[in-house]
């Protein structure tokens, strides 16, 4: 199978859907040349740095029978448009009693690790998870980003795609032929029997590395990538934990009220899964600090392969 990068896969997703559906309109600061050249300035709009205006315009466009893609580039820029995300896009279907559909794909680049300092290093997906009415995808591979973005552009609801900045140049297998990836279906990245590791976004790769390290010490690790946070594939995670009895959740975001917290909750509040636990559950998350600039400090703030492996070995060695 051919190998392409995460970025190439995401461009392909947009191109394919824009060819299929002439109601799709793209808005972003900075032009995406591949889209502009093929689909022209009517459907591919360059915006000023006015996030509230074009994040909101996506809502009006969608409510008027179009399908919108609004790309705010970096997740941190979405904060100035927060009202349009959480008070408008998220609630508008519901508040109006479902009388109109709002098919919108919002794209945000998240993530730490670029020495970008506190304001440009954010993982805000759990903030949006706390607002009913949004769907949230967090693809980690080229295959998934293409398939999930395509599904998002066919969905009739506001969807936010969080794409880690460090993933753009990651290569992976992507078929030539058309496919989509459904929402709410986790991907089991590696099978194992002793410990379940649920990892998000870039952390999937660190978790796979840590699983390999643990394997050398005789611990068999199952790595699950939920791929979408809303809806969340609770069943696949619970089934895995029921089998292994041990759970580590890895999330680059700050620990407090994180997606990792939610994943732990949905596992332990289920009585059957709870009874199968052989060790306390663990979260390996970003530190609860604004992300520091200087590399040694930033590296310390981010979960890495070693820290994940340590957590795996700790829960694996727990004597109940």
């Amino acid at each position: 199978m051919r190998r392409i990068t995460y970025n190439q896969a995401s461009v392909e997703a947009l191109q394919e859907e824009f060819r299929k559906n002439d109601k799709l309109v793209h808005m972003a600061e900075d032009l995406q040349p591949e889209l502009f050249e093929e689909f022209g300035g009517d459907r591919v709009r360059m915006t000023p740095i006015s996030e509230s205006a074009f994040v909101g315009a996506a809502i009006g466009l969608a409510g008027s029978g179009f399908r919108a893609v609004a790309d705010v580039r970096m997740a941190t820029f979405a904060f100035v448009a927060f009202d349009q995300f959480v008070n408008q896009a998220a609630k508008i279907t519901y508040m109006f009693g479902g009388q109109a559909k709002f098919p919108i794909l919002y794209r945000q680049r998240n993530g730490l690790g670029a020495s970008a300092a506190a304001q440009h290093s954010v993982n805000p997906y759990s903030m949006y998870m706390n607002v009913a009415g949004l769907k949230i995808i967090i693809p980690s591979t080229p295959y998934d980003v293409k398939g999930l973005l395509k599904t998002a552009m066919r969905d009739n609801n506001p969807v936010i795609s969080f794409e880690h900045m460090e993933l753009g140049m990651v290569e992976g297998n992507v078929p030539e032929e058309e496919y989509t990836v459904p929402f709410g279906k986790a991907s089991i990245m590696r099978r194992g029997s002793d410990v379940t590791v649920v990892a998000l976004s870039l952390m999937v790769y660190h978790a796979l590395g840590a699983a390999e390290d643990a394997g050398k010490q005789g611990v068999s690790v199952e790595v699950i990538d939920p791929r979408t946070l809303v809806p969340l594939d609770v069943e696949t995670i619970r089934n895995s934990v029921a089998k292994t009895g041990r759970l580590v959740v890895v999330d680059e975001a700050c620990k407090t009220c994180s997606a990792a917290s939610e994943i732990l909750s949905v596992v332990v509040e289920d009585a059957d899964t709870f009874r199968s636990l052989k060790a306390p559950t663990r979260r390996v998350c970003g530190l609860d600090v604004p992300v520091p600039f200087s590399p040694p400090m930033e590296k310390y703030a981010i979960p890495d392969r070693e820290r994940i492996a340590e957590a795996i070995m700790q829960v694996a060695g727990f004597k109940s």
Partner: protein
Amino acid sequence: METDRNELMKLHRTMLTIRRFEERVSLEYARGNVLGYVHLYIGQEAVAAGVCNNLRIDDRIVSSHRGHGHSIAKGADIKRMMAEIYGKKTGYCKGKGGSMHIADFSIGMLGANGIVGAGMPIAVGAGLAAQLEKKEGVAAVFFGDGASQEGEFHESMSLAAIWKLPLIFVCENNLYASGTPARYAVPTKDIYTKAESYGMPGVVVDGNDVVAVNEVARELVAKTRKGGGPVLLECKTYRWHTHFELAPFPDLRPKEEVESWMKKCPIAAMEKRLLAAGTSEKEISDMNNGILERIEAAVKYAEESPFPDPEDALEDVYSS
């Protein structure tokens, strides 16, 4: 082109329907039959009536928290409006929205909005939709002097001008943002003059003179339909009630000021004009009685309609 008698009667009917509808809402609020935050439009009827008189059914409007008048002027069904205000299942939003979130997408009413200024970006999207549809459609957004001080005003005016959207910004300057006087919170004497900064025409009109609003709107809407781009129309007006219908909510506005504006009642002025144009008092009172009957029927419909089932709260979070 002058406004002929038929058109005068139509404008009068719209204003009177808004007035009588809201008087009844106010009464039912005082009686405890209507709950929540209810912002009445009484005193400003000429704006909605005059602007919407120039819109087609497929033109789209976006409204504010003070939205009953815009809905009625755009042609909404007052039975379903009243039922929504009562929180009933038969309301426009199945009881999920209430007074602040009435919408009727079938007539291009894209919703009232509880967040000051937030409708403007959404209207940019509606304007973009109209531009892409190429049917000489327009969009209009209603907001107050308070919203003119929101960042979204700047972003939306700017983006609409950059894209030359067919969008009418209707600023209803009623001199108060909640309790804060415009003379304090708006740095310039007028708001329409801001249009020049965005390279669009700005026009001011007596917002209590429905004929003036109608004639100015007719000209502006016609130009905008033909590709003339966005425009800012400031309507100087006044609301008679307090910011919202909450009995202990203090009204700090000078009593003489309120009374002087009540003397400039747009509906009383129109009655005079109609009588002078040869309309009989009977015709006018027949119209009033007909409206009162329709409102009585709307209240009956709302009262007799069932409340939603509690579990209906779980529906419409997402569209299928």
